[in-house]
């Protein structure tokens, strides 16, 4: 079993090349498997580590200091795993949780769909089936790490659905599916997530539907949504914290001391502003972790707004922090590939944050929630 420190060393070593080639960090995933961390949120009775959301956040923060792509892959896997732990029926639990607990399964998420504009809660992908079997034929434009996943959680319309919101979440092993990759992945940042377009076709027993048929929305409210936002925020905060750490190390190095006047008001106020952004996101992250753990009903507008605000603010503040760091260190260390500070990679990675479930969409949802809470009850 590798320790977290050993995993981090592998991730750090592989990150640059995976970014350059926009390929999946295969060795990092293998290291995560060997560490048991892919079973982090699976209860001990199934051989997992029995960790909660706070542990997921802490590991994601650490991974993101080395590679934000790996942190996103890890956080999203934990989101899928926790969803199975909390919502899968007895037969599916028995089938999946032991291997998941041992950390052998890497779960891919298939929730994107052409033509629905990033709406998570609706689908146009029909399924067919009977009382026993569900047939899936799913085209997804973006599947993070999809080529390397051992199994998938897939959203699709329930059979016989009469409206696009009757979405089911379905578990499928890779062996139950015909999986084809339909295109490449050559983005600005998050290059090592290798989030390719895919088509997945196959038939699974209806016992592999997670929760009640058509009830994906309840799973999103209770588990899937909050965990996505907690995990993403942790990945972004970790990436920005790592960047600040390297910049401070650089300023304090012999080379840095020649370049920077550490009594400069401009330098000091800029650094304070960057640190302040990270403090705000960290406080919001911890507050949201607590509220999600303690709230009986996560559909209440105050909690919903807090969870959405975490995502929006983490995306905005972490990117702004790294943008400011680029300004602090200047062209050579801030803008050029090959700098030991690799700010340009983090800058590119974090540019995705506002788009990764669009901030605009969450602000619209929060706007409605604001009007639903005239007392302004802060969660």
């Amino acid at each position, binding site marked *: 079993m590798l320790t977290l420190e050993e995993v981090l060393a592998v991730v750090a070593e592989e990150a640059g090349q995976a970014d350059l080639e926009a390929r999946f960090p295969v060795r990092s995933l293998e290291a995560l498997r060997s560490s048991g961390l892919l079973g982090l949120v699976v209860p001990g009775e199934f051989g997992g580590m029995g960790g909660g959301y706070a542990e997921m956040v802490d590991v994601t923060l650490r991974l993101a200091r080395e590679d934000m792509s790996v942190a996103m892959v890890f956080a999203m896997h934990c989101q899928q795993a926790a969803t199975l732990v909390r919502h899968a029926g007895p037969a599916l639990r028995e089938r999946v949780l032991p291997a998941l607990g041992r950390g052998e399964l890497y779960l891919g998420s298939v929730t994107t769909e052409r033509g629905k504009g990033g709406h998570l809660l609706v689908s146009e992908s029909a399924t067919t089936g009977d009382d026993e079997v569900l047939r899936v034929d799913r085209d997804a434009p973006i599947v993070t790490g999809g080529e390397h996943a051992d199994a998938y959680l897939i959203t699709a319309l329930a059979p016989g659905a009469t409206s696009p919101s009757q979405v089911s979440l379905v578990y499928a092993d890779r062996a139950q599916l015909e999986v084809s990759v339909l295109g490449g992945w050559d983005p600005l940042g998050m290059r090592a997530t290798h989030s390719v377009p895919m088509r997945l076709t196959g038939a699974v027993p209806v016992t592999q539907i997670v929760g009640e048929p058509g009830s994906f929305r309840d799973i999103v409210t209770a588990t899937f949504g909050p965990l996505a936002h907690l995990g993403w925020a942790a990945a972004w905060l970790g990436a920005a914290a790592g960047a600040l750490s390297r910049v401070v190390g650089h300023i304090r190095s012999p080379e840095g001391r020649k370049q920077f006047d550490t009594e400069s008001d401009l330098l000091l106020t800029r650094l304070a502003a960057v640190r302040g952004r990270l403090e705000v996101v960290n406080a919001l992250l911890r507050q949201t972790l607590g509220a999600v753990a303690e709230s009986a009903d996560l559909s209440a507008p105050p909690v919903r707004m807090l969870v959405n605000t975490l995502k929006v603010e983490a995306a905005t503040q972490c990117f702004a922090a790294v943008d400011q760091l680029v300004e602090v260190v200047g062209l050579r260390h801030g803008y050029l590939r090959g700098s030991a500070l690799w700010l340009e990679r983090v800058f590119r990675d974090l540019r995705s944050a506002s788009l990764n479930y669009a901030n605009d969409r969450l602000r619209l949802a929060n706007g409605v929630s604001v*009007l*639903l809470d005239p007392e302004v009850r802060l969660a």
Partner: protein
Amino acid sequence: MDSRFADMLRPFLKYAGGAEITLESSLRDLGLDSMQAIELLFAIEDTYQVSLPDELLTDTTFATAGSLWAAISGARQC
């Protein structure tokens, strides 16, 4: 559930077609969108002259026609 209730709901339920709206009808499945929550609250206030208490504005209240009717009935008795 009185007759005004189904008439009030129907504009929010774009997938209901001509089908009867019963206590068991799932509002979400029939097309109620969370982005319309404010318009629905206004419709409830205009029709029944009641405001639903803030703490009832959860998914459970808006799950079915019956659960929403129960919340409105409760608010009217206050």
